[in-house]
């Protein structure tokens, strides 16, 4: 088999590079990370004429080879390193017909690296509307290249790209600009010191602040007979390079590229008047936000419930079908439940990225950044952090994945670190049950106290996110050179294909990337919750059975049986069933219910004496000042998996046999502390709510932060800080209120 042709797709942002990539590779693409950094690496295989194959690498968008961000450094790094396995045999430079002049700057730089380069002029379908005419043949001659005129929207020109790639050996690799003109004296000295080297490559090594080639850089610095220039002088020369390139480009375009401004129609200008308007701009943005919220909160709840139910059914099926034993339990309660815990996030992630990619594809996202930038600045963030932060109010996981659009690493890191403070939907069940328990009914100015409390919790979460962003901005010492500048592309109808790819790709990267960690932690938590070392745990069945024999069922279980029977009787009588039949079926029901009550008491007893239960008890002195007992302590521990587990764990430990919120709530209300007062009172309730507002109780978020920051350092700092802070706030609340 012959070697695949290595192709690098390079281009400015907003030139439709990804569309070209999708068209060339179809679904035969793979998205990963570059080793060691979190820049997305997209590659794929493209079949060319005559049975040849090309390996296509979609490089991050860049305006030039002068780097200011990690993404851009990566492009330069690859193009300068002939030994890289991805070093291109041919570069395909994607440009946009409307911004051709600017796009050609990058093209000339790549060409000067002596890489055979093909020029793709995309969005050819817009030429008529914009009054643009091109002399492609003349341009090919002047640029000494081959050109493909492409419209990814109309699906034209893609075959031409494929032909050109297949025939790449005939593409010229001659440089286009005499780069020594940048500084004849300096380049002369370079040449005499390094006679073997390519001068423009050396020039890039010297001027670019990329850390990838320390050896080469050192070699230049060590050359004693060669004095390099100061940073300022180099910057001056870089300015000169840009000017020289634009002169060259202007000369070429003067004869080959014409724009008839009279024929140009601008949709952008009129849409921008409304979409970035001082009033309407915000109104439209908030309407869109509401829609996104509605989708993540409401619409995704249907598939989520479906997933939830089916995984529960699957677990039950496994338990009933396979022979009982440790392996079956592991499969049903550890693995299946763990996978369920991953799959449950898919609807939210898919919905968020559906909207985000629609907004990005259409060009609207840049307008959001423009509208919100000033508001975010006092917190050390820019307009680019708005969408992740707001999405965090639904779920932190897709929100953190969405921070990839922030080029500035410091801003991105801050956004990742503070997003978990926003009130995600998993906090809601915890808040709702606690509010119903401890916040009195009644109202203030027509708003119920309970609703006000919930709103306050949302505000506290968002406020805390902004506040910590401000603090982090002060203490994080990360040098970032990126300036705030954002291109406002023309509005376009999103290509459904691109949107679809984004959704699939993001979902995949969550499931494969963070899924492993989530699954591992849930298996560990399952193990700790369903195993114990003590005799109490080992003999739970017989101990509980003995207790029931001696003392009967617990008061709660007795009530549970009786209430259910009463309800059944009332119901049956209302339907007019015969008294005898009622009596018989009640007898059966009673047995069934008692059996269930015993099972619940065993489960409760087991949880109490499992490793986690023991840990909860060991932790009791630690959580006592917060107003919790060991049972709540256990619930806090297990809900590290996910916040909503809090409710389920309390249900198990109070041996409530149902997930019915009302039943659990009643049971919680009946729980008394040592003095015979209700355990869940205003002080302990508020303390718990504040704890859940601030604590990093979500292993999935930690997993995704690990993935997005590519180290355990940041998620661990996040976990430590948020837990300590949550503890202190809960402690203060309880001590003041009680």
């Amino acid at each position: 088999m012959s070697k695949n042709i290595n192709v690098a797709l390079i281009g400015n942002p907003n030139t439709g590079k990804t569309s070209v990539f999708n068209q060339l590779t179809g679904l035969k693409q793979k998205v990963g990370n570059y080793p060691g950094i979190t820049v997305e690496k997209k590659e794929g295989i493209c079949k060319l004429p005559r049975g040849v194959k090309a390996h296509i690498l979609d490089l991050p968008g860049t305006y030039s080879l002068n780097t200011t961000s990690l993404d851009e450094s990566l492009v330069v790094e690859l193009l300068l390193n002939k030994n890289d396995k991805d070093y291109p045999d041919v570069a395909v430079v994607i440009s946009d017909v409307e911004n051709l002049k600017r796009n050609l700057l990058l093209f000339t730089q790549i060409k000067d690296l002596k890489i055979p380069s093909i020029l793709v002029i995309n969005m050819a379908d817009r030429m008529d509307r914009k009054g643009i005419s091109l002399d492609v043949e003349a341009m090919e001659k002047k640029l000494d290249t081959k050109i493909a005129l492409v419209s990814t929207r109309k699906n034209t020109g893609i075959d031409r790209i494929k032909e050109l790639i297949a025939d790449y050996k005939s593409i010229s690799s001659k440089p286009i600009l005499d780069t020594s003109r940048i500084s004849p004296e300096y380049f002369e000295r370079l040449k005499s010191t390094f006679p073997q080297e390519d001068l423009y490559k050396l020039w890039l090594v010297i001027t670019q602040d990329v850390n990838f080639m320390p050896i080469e850089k050192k070699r230049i610095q060590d050359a004693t007979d060669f004095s390099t220039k100061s940073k300022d002088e180099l910057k001056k020369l870089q300015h000169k390079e840009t000017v020289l390139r634009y002169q060259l480009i202007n000369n070429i375009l003067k004869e080959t590229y014409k724009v008839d401004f009279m024929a140009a129609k601008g949709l952008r200008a009129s849409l921008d008047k409304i979409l970035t308007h001082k009033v309407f701009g915000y109104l439209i943005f908030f309407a869109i936000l509401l829609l996104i919220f509605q989708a993540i909160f409401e619409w995704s709840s249907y598939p989520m419930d479906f997933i939830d139910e089916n995984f529960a059914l699957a677990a039950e099926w496994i338990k009933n079908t396979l022979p009982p034993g440790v392996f079956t339990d592991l499969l049903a309660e550890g693995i299946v439940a763990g996978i369920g815990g991953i799959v449950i996030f898919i609807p939210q992630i898919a919905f968020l990225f559906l909207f985000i990619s629609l907004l990005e594809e259409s060009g609207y996202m840049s307008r959001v950044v423009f509208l919100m930038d000033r508001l975010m600045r006092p917190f050390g963030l820019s307009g680019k952090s708005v969408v992740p932060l707001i999405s965090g109010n639904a779920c932190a996981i897709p929100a953190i994945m969405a921070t990839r659009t922030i080029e500035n690493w410091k801003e991105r890191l801050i956004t990742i670190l503070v997003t978990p403070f926003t009130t995600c939907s998993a906090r809601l069940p915890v808040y709702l049950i606690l509010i119903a328990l401890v916040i009195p009914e009644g109202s203030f100015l027509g708003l119920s106290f309970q609703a006000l409390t919930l709103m306050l919790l949302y505000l506290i979460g968002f406020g805390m996110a902004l506040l910590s962003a401000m603090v982090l901005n002060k203490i994080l010492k990360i040098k970032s050179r990126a300036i705030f500048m954002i291109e406002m592309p023309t509005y376009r109808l999103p290509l459904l294909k691109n949107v679809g790819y984004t959704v699939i790709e993001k979902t995949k990267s969550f499931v494969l990337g963070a899924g492993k960690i989530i699954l591992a932690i849930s298996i560990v938590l399952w193990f700790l919750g369903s195993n114990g070392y003590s005799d109490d745990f080992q003999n739970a069945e017989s101990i509980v059975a003995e207790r029931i024999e001696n003392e009967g069922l617990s008061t709660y279980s007795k009530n549970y049986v009786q209430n259910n029977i009463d309800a059944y009787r009332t119901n049956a009588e209302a339907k007019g069933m015969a008294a005898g039949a009622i009596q018989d079926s009640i007898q059966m029901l009673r047995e069934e219910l008692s059996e269930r009550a015993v099972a619940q008491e065993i489960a409760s007893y087991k949880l109490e004496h499992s490793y986690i239960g023991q840990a909860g008890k060991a932790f009791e002195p630690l959580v006592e000042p917060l107003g919790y007992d060991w049972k709540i302590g256990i619930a806090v521990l297990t809900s590290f998996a996910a916040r909503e587990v809090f409710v389920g764990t309390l249900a198990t430990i109070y041996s409530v046999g149902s997930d019915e919120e009302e039943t659990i709530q009643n049971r919680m209300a009946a729980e008394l502390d040592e003095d015979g007062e209700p355990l869940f009172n205003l002080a302990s309730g508020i303390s718990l709510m504040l704890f859940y507002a601030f604590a990093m109780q979500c292993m999935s978020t930690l997993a995704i932060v690990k993935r997005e920051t590519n180290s355990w350092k940041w998620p661990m700092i996040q976990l430590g800080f948020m837990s300590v802070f949550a503890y202190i706030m809960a402690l203060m609340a309880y001590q003041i209120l009680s």
Partner: protein
Amino acid sequence: MTVADLQYGQKGIIKDFTEHILPIKLLELGCLPGNSVELLQIAPLNDPIYINLSGSHLAIRRSLAALIELEIIEETQAK
């Protein structure tokens, strides 16, 4: 007069700059002496501003805009 001082409907030509304080990125996007700049929109809180820089549609902060000196060439009625 700098880009930050532009009013709605004003268009200017970038003056020759001898000081090399501008980020190179801005040059690459067309901020070169002799090129035109037109103000398109001002964000609700007065910052950033949205300009047409010789064909590139960009939003930049005022602090950066204040570095670009220009000469007014066109004044249409403010919209």
